[in-house]
């Protein structure tokens, strides 16, 4: 009855070998980029790639959590759009309003997410449908609020997106990085963190074990809403104003790094570090496409291809008909 397992270092165990694949792809892409342009492999460009990863990083951090539970949050794009409008609309150029509005927006994001979670738990409808519905509602509210850019923010507000630490290291991207490390620690070292994996792995077993599955789900969707709100604040910092379609591409975009990073759509396997590497991969890919002078519209095409490719690579071979 001896059980033999391939002993990987702990941080790679549990299917996290997918991380190695992403790292390999990052290196490959780096070499490719360097061969395209002399300016690619410079510190300046790499800091640029890092800086531009922040928005995607924040939204896909929350998305990772929902996907780990075996769900998904398709409302994040709309939530970002609405909350970006509320941020600039309510601050309306007034320095004194910045802190209360940002705090309110973050709370509102978490509440919208919690509403998603409660609906999923109470109705038993698949998260895909629930969040698609919420997404449509939120997008509708955004358009009722305004059909174009709303309000403005003080000049200093751009520090989140464009501010740097000494050495030109982006503040926003570093905040995102820190949040990833924090959530990773949370997932690995707290009771709730481990239970997020358990309920994604086998929700039925989780119920029989008496794990608080419903409460955890509500929390996870609230977190996803919170990170969408943070993304909205970041994008307002970047573009100085919120618009009804600011977040439009972020729903699909938030899923790409998650699946590229090895988190299974079926739930229970993966982690945020994979997602972080996935974010850098996407960011590097877009940067490379810029150097190749390819229209930014192709970035969307490439992203679509990448997501299908990633899922098909990681998908487990079906056993029997089950």
């Amino acid at each position, binding site marked *: *009855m*001896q*059980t033999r*397992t391939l002993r990987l270092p702990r941080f790679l*165990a*549990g*299917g996290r070998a997918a991380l190695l694949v992403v790292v390999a792809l990052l290196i490959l892409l780096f070499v490719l980029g360097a061969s395209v342009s002399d300016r690619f492999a410079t510190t300046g460009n790499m800091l640029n790639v890092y800086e531009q990863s922040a928005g995607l990083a924040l939204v896909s951090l929350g998305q990772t959590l929902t996907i780990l539970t075996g769900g998904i949050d398709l409302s994040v794009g709309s939530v970002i759009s609405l909350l970006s409008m509320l941020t600039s609309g309510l601050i309306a150029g007034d320095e004194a309003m910045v802190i209360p509005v940002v705090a309110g927006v973050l709370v509102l994001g978490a509440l919208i997410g919690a509403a998603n979670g409660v609906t999923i738990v109470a109705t038993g409808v698949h998260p895909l449908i629930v969040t698609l519905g919420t997404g449509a509602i939120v997008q509708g509210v955004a358009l009722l609020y305004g059909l174009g850019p709303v309000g403005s923010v003080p000049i200093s507000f751009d520090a989140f997106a464009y501010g740097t630490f000494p050495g030109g290291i982006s503040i926003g991207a570093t905040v995102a990085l820190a949040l990833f490390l924090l959530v990773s620690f949370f997932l*690995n*070292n*707290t*009771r709730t*963190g*481990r*239970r997020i*994996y*358990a309920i994604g*792995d*086998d929700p039925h*077993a*989780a*119920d*029989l*074990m*008496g*794990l*608080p599955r419903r409460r955890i789900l509500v929390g996870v969707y609230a977190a996803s809403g919170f990170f969408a709100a943070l993304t909205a604040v970041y994008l307002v910092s970047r573009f100085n104003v919120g618009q009804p379609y600011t977040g439009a591409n972020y729903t699909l975009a938030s899923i790409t790094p998650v699946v590229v990073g090895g988190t299974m759509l079926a739930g*229970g*396997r993966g982690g945020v570090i994979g997602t972080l590497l996935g974010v850098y991969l996407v960011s590097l890919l877009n940067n490379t496409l810029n150097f190749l002078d390819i229209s930014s519209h192709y970035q969307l095409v490439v992203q679509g291809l990448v997501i299908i490719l990633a899922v098909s690579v990681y998908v487990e071979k079906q*056993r*029997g*008909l089950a």
Partner: protein
Amino acid sequence: MLSLQGISKGFPGVKALTDVSLDVAAGEIHALVGENGAGKSTLTRVIAGVFQPDAGTVRFDGRETVWKGPGDAKRHGVHVIYQEFVLFPHLSVAENIFVGHERRNRLGLIDHGRTRRDAKELLARFGIDIDPEALVRDLSVADQQMVEIAKALVHDVKLLILDEPTAVISGREVDVLFDRLRRLKQQGVAIVYISHRLEEIFALCDRVSVLKDGNHVATRTIDEVTRDQLIALMVGRNLAELFPVRRSAKAPGPVVVAARNVEVSGRVRGASIELRAGEITGLAGMVGAGRSELALAMFGAIPMRSGSLVVDGREVSGLSPRRAIDLGIGLVTEDRKGQGLAMLLDVAANVSASTLNEFGRGWRFDRAREKRVAEQEIASYRIACRGPSTPVSVMSGGNQQKVLVARWARTSTRLLILDEPTRGVDVGAKTEIYRIMHELADRGVAVLMISSELPEIVGMSERVVVMREGVVTGELSKSEISEEAVVELATRRLAG
């Protein structure tokens, strides 16, 4: 410790438990026996707080109790080892053991070191040699079962329920388990032990309670009951009554379909089976023995890694469900809702589903004809429904099953495979399904019946093939068939 009074529980279309009363004392190992579908699992789930009873009271530890859920029951010391594993395949063994009772340090964070050490110690105490850091999905089924059992010992357990714990373990592992259970008994734990293996019950238990069709039939101390009496209580009716006698039993015809050395990844390891025209063959074995997988592979629904299907002496190439149907092979799957019936469609659509070509050429579809055929089938199989346009979803399990059998009986001219054809079906419908099987055999069709119910295997089969762990361990001719012989082959230790 536990006292049930007048527990009843129903589900839409089925009465699972009727007025069941049962006492289990502290320091007692109490066996719960009954045929499949007798209500053992439902009763387990009521005791564990998964289901709320429709009527009746649960007294636990001297107090009347209404569990708020399985977590509540667990906190009060009720632990269940379910037949299907409650394990998280992608968490480690140690994490599985402590999930719900995570080992934490002073900061409230998971103490990975202590989790690992405690798991190791617990497994060692049980004499189990499993790496606590291995992922559960990488363990053998037997090891997974041992992890399930180890999990029970983490808690301060007052009542331990085990549902078929030995289905996937054998020999030394069973001895270790029994030894452990006896020690728990001495510590005053009340144990409910559910098993099909009567010899285990006589070896281990103090008292035995029998459930039949959701009713509590009897409770006896183990000394005052014999094995035969117990079987009589479980079956509770004349076998000949339930299983109709096949009137025109002729000698079986030639082999029409044969599977040779079939391998299906992980589940079937070189199984061969021959099926004769007009003969009803039973395929027996424990859950997970690879019977369903063999059937699915023969039908082309899952790929064979190696081996072949021979029909009328010729090897079939390019096997697929479509090809199998064309060859006159049908398969009534175990999971009639998931893989068999279109639940939202009506009877007519479900009956015609595998013979659509019969009803139209090109883009035309002859609805009137479909309706006529469905009416015929409803009459000949005595399907209880309002008519061909009744949605299948509103029908009882037994009638749903008859619809499914009717569909496949239309196309199966050589072989019909029925996987657990009477699971979740009431007694009347069972007899009806047996009658249909006889009719098919009389028409010269080979019938292969997969069943986990020993009385059904013994009562219906003219020949029995037994599988264990993916290989055929033996074959019994009509005169050799008995429950004991089947169990013996199904649990036989494999050489090597």
